[in-house]
């Protein structure tokens, strides 16, 4: 039973990490109908920048802020330079461009920082908390993961629900032509959406790096797990992304805990196929007619 609870706790913190990457995918997909397959690689790059800043001896939190700020800039630049030209082309073009960016960033990171596995420091202790007299598989750092991702989700929800900017962004996503006629600067809001998504990714990178080997490809699997999570959540609902993240995290934790870690990616593939076969629109999205 203790194994079960430990696996469950691990699944929750993993799941919230998937949720933060999935949230980035959803923010972009909702606004532009593009899946950003470079979301993980962009997060990898900002985390490596934080790694270099840490190497200068400035402490963890300045590096943390630098990573998020770099995410903000990187997301905007990527959208302006690479995504705008393919925005109105066939959807495959955007897919291919984001894949190109994925491997380009991984190559650049390898050229700058090397391809070897490194360690990345955590903000808080990673040894398990003690409840009663037993140590559980949930550390101070896991608490930080929960708090940070929930804060991110709440901020996104507040932004969209209660601010003019959020209203404009929703308008630009759902009815770009009408929004444009009403004076909303749609294309700039799309850029801003990519920036916000990249910040969510940058946060995820900082949360993943201490718990895994830290190399230019460390976000690859996280990206596909987050994609699974986003699809489960319906790809256009931020809340769905969080629930999808938790579902994916828990399911993969049970697969990994009871059947062996090597089966986790296969488990994710099976989950993705089953969800797409049964409810391609996701478990939490309202089914809509496919636009032809």
């Amino acid at each position, binding site marked *: 039973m203790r194994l079960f609870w430990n696996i469950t706790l691990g699944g929750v913190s993993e799941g919230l990490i998937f949720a933060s990457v999935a949230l980035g995918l959803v923010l972009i997909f909702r606004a532009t109908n593009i899946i950003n397959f470079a979301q993980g690689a962009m997060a990898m790059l900002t985390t490596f920048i934080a790694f270099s800043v840490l190497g200068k001896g400035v402490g963890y939190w300045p590096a943390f802020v630098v990573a998020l700020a770099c995410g903000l800039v990187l997301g905007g630049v990527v959208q302006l330079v690479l995504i705008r030209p393919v925005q109105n082309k066939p959807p495959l073009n955007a897919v291919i*461009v984001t894949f190109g960016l994925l491997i380009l960033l991984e190559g650049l990171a390898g050229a700058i*920082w090397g391809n070897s596995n490194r360690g990345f420091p955590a903000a808080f202790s990673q040894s398990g908390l003690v409840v009663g007299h037993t140590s559980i598989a949930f550390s101070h750092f896991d608490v930080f993961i929960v708090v940070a991702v929930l804060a991110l989700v709440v901020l996104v929800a507040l932004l969209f629900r209660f601010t003019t900017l959020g209203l404009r962004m929703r308008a630009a996503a759902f009815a770009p032509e009408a929004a444009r006629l009403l004076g909303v600067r749609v294309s700039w809001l799309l850029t801003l959406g990519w920036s916000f998504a990249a910040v969510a990714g940058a946060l995820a990178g900082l949360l993943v790096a201490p718990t895994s080997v830290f190399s230019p490809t460390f976000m690859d699997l996280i990206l596909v797990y987050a994609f699974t999570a986003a699809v489960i959540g319906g790809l256009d609902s931020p809340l769905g992304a969080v629930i999808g993240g938790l579902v994916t995290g828990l399911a993969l934790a049970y697969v990994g805990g009871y059947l*062996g870690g090597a089966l986790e990616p296969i488990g994710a*593939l099976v989950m993705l196929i089953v969800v797409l076969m049964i409810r391609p629109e996701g478990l939490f999205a309202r089914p809509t007619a496919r636009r032809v």
Partner: protein
Amino acid sequence: MIKLRLPGWARLPRQPLLRHLLFGAVGVAFFYVLSISLSDFNDFQLGEVGVYAIAIAGLSVLTGVNGQISLGQGAFLAVGAYTLGELEVHQSINLVLQLLIAVAVSALVGLIIAVPATRLRGPYLAGMTLLLALALPFLSDKYSSFFGGDQGLITLPPNAPGSIDPQRWLTWIQLFCALLVVVLLANVLSSRFGRSFRAVRDNEVAASLAGVHVARTKVIAFVISSACAGLAGALLVLSTGVVNTGEFPLSLSIYLLAGMVLGGAGTLTGAWWGAILVVYLPNQWSQSIANAFHANHLVGANLAVIIFGAVLIVVMLAAPAGVQGGLRWLGHRLVTVSTGPKPAGNISVTLQDQPVSKQDRDGPESDRAATSID
């Protein structure tokens, strides 16, 4: 503008099969002369060009002609490679039979993946095949006794008949398979199947209204693509001599995609340009470039990856038709070939976007209208 007027006998045959066989025969002669004039190592790389041309041609049919994108091409290469490895380990059977079994197994795996995949559109399919490419290597970790673990399975090069150099014989096998596949694919593309592939790519609803079974068409394209990848994987391990998961990283799938995009999505000739890039860039060109700029070893080790990424982005933004599209455009601008009196029924040829459509450019006004549809 150069105008060429060819006599009637120099005209390409109008039956697709004859025309493709003619190209195939020219290819056989070309590669024979090329391979006997090259050194052993260059022969090895020439064979690899053929192998990757098979994989890229399959991907090109799937993505360029049918409009489905697969990031899992590397995974299907692995399926073909491991199938051949298992056959070599457990029993020694005829090479042709081994290759056919490898093709059949990867086609079967492709079929299993295709059934859910064909219900998906662009980004969903891309994500699913990406997950497939990342997940499949883990199977060999889990069942390491069957798949040979980290060391993988050992394969032996095929025995060459007579006094032929074994490396050269293997290169011939690889190139012959590549030409065979390209001729077969060219025939498929100019058949009813090819037309339905394109119809489904351009508009699924219109295609199904015209009587095309959309799901079946997508499954067929996916199976063709994975069968090609399986054959390529099987031929690849004949020259590397070992099958392990290190041979099939995610980057291989992305290299193949980049090769396809660079050569020109949907063109079989373009697959050869892409294959040349996939073989020579990581092994030789990137090192030469790095040396020329006195780059440090980290840059040298990652330069190929960077260039592949840049190729994907730049080609997609600047010239989505790729090298082959550019060559065609250039060919149309510089040279017009006419072959005496126009044969009737040329309009249908134009609509199928056949490579011989340059014949049509010099025709009367009625044919101009047809080319503008194209």
